[in-house]
């Protein structure tokens, strides 16, 4: 290891060679290499954390790049773990990188986390987060939590030196569809970066100053007014003991990127055959094309506040531009006890064409 690389941090009197050695010996697993995991990995690799694990089953998408600066345009379509490994190895060859393209599941998590000292949650869903929490409590490992909601974020260090765990803050996961993520709500790259860097900093503190790092705190950040709320929290000892016991089973998580029950998706042909179904446009009001024959328009982000405008007895087919927001809307309505809700897989443009050509016999390719 050439120390010149780390000279500016070794110069800090409370880090020195001893702190740098602690970083070089540290083994950190980052689960989810997205908006939060990407800055965490970049900064931990650059600062000389010796062993980094990266678990993610996604591929790099163009819509990732505004906030996931670990990847470049040329990486689009590549497995994230592969692109991450290449980039991190060129950033700092001192670091040993292990990748897990299968992601984290109920069946592999205990074995995967075993070699690591610290686990970092960069996932975007509750089933993965509760799985990480419970596995870390059972394995007596510290983990760092971070999550985003629009211009706000949260982060905390859990299960460190007898401190509380995520369940001490939120004992049970919210209902499916109750809390949406960035893919639905959107996020600015800087907000993901700020929370990711807070998590990376918490990781450095945990490695270098394990006795001084805040282990009974959760932080709420609001970038709209640049505020940080530092909240103290206590351990719920009986809850943690329960999770630790053999009778407590790990929660099911078979697909890390999707915690929610998939909504019923329908093709355009199926949608047009559904009896008495109402079309629900969940796009923003300014989006084109407008469809005159559509029954209702409620943008997905307003849907929860405007549930009263809908009738649980009726059948709804949500649609948007790509089908993603339609799925989110259908999931949310299902969570609010709407039984007959479908997400249209086709785009608004296709729907418009189909409605306008309803009486024509041409064979459209949907």
């Amino acid at each position: 290891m050439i120390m010149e690389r780390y000279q500016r941090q070794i110069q800090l009197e409370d880090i020195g060679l001893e702190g740098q050695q602690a970083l070089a010996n540290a083994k950190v697993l980052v689960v989810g290499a997205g908006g939060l995991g990407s800055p965490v990995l970049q900064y931990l690799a650059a600062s000389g954390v010796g062993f980094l694990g990266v678990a993610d089953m996604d591929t790099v998408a163009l819509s990732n790049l505004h906030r996931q600066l670990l990847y470049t345009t040329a990486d689009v379509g590549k497995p994230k773990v592969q692109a991450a490994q290449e980039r991190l190895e060129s950033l700092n060859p001192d670091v040993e990188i292990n990748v897990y393209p299968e992601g984290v599941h109920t069946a592999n998590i205990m074995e995967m986390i075993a070699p690591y000292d610290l686990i970092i949650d960069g996932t975007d869903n509750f089933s993965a987060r509760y799985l990480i929490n419970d596995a870390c409590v059972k394995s007596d490992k510290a983990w760092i939590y971070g999550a985003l909601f629009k211009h706000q974020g949260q982060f905390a260090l859990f299960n460190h030196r007898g401190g509380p765990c995520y369940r001490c803050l939120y004992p049970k996961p919210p209902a499916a569809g109750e809390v949406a993520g960035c893919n639905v709500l959107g996020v600015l790259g800087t907000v993901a970066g700020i929370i990711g860097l807070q998590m990376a900093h918490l990781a450095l503190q945990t490695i270098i100053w394990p006795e001084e790092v805040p282990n009974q705190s959760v932080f709420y950040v609001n970038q709209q007014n640049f505020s940080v709320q530092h909240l103290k929290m206590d351990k719920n000892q009986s809850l943690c003991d329960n999770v630790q016991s053999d009778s407590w089973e790990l929660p099911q998580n078979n697909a890390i990127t999707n915690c929610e029950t998939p909504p019923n998706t329908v093709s355009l042909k199926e949608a047009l055959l559904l009896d008495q179904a109402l079309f629900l446009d969940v796009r923003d009001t300014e989006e084109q094309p407008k469809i005159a024959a559509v029954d209702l328009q409620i943008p997905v982000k307003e849907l929860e506040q405007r549930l009263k405008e809908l009738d649980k007895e009726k059948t709804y087919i949500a649609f948007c531009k790509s089908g993603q927001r339609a799925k989110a809307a259908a999931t949310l309505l299902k969570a609010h006890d709407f039984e007959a809700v479908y997400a249209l897989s086709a785009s608004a443009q296709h729907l418009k064409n189909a409605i306008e050509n309803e009486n024509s016999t041409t064979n459209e390719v949907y």
Partner: protein
Amino acid sequence: MELTLKYFGRIAELTGKTEEIRSAAVETVDELDSVLRREYPGLSMATYSIAVDHEIVKPSFPLKSKVEVALLPPFSGG
């Protein structure tokens, strides 16, 4: 008693505000929570923790006038 209420994340969207000062005839966090759930029906489906003066507390926690109460939902995005 007079309380300062702060709403985070999705809770601010369900209540339509990020902060309010209100008088309420309540003694515990739980009682305040019931008052808020009546006033903002969206809260009944929501998950959140409650902090009093920057400390996460249990429902039975006794309230005093002038404290700051924060409703903190979990976030999901990553």
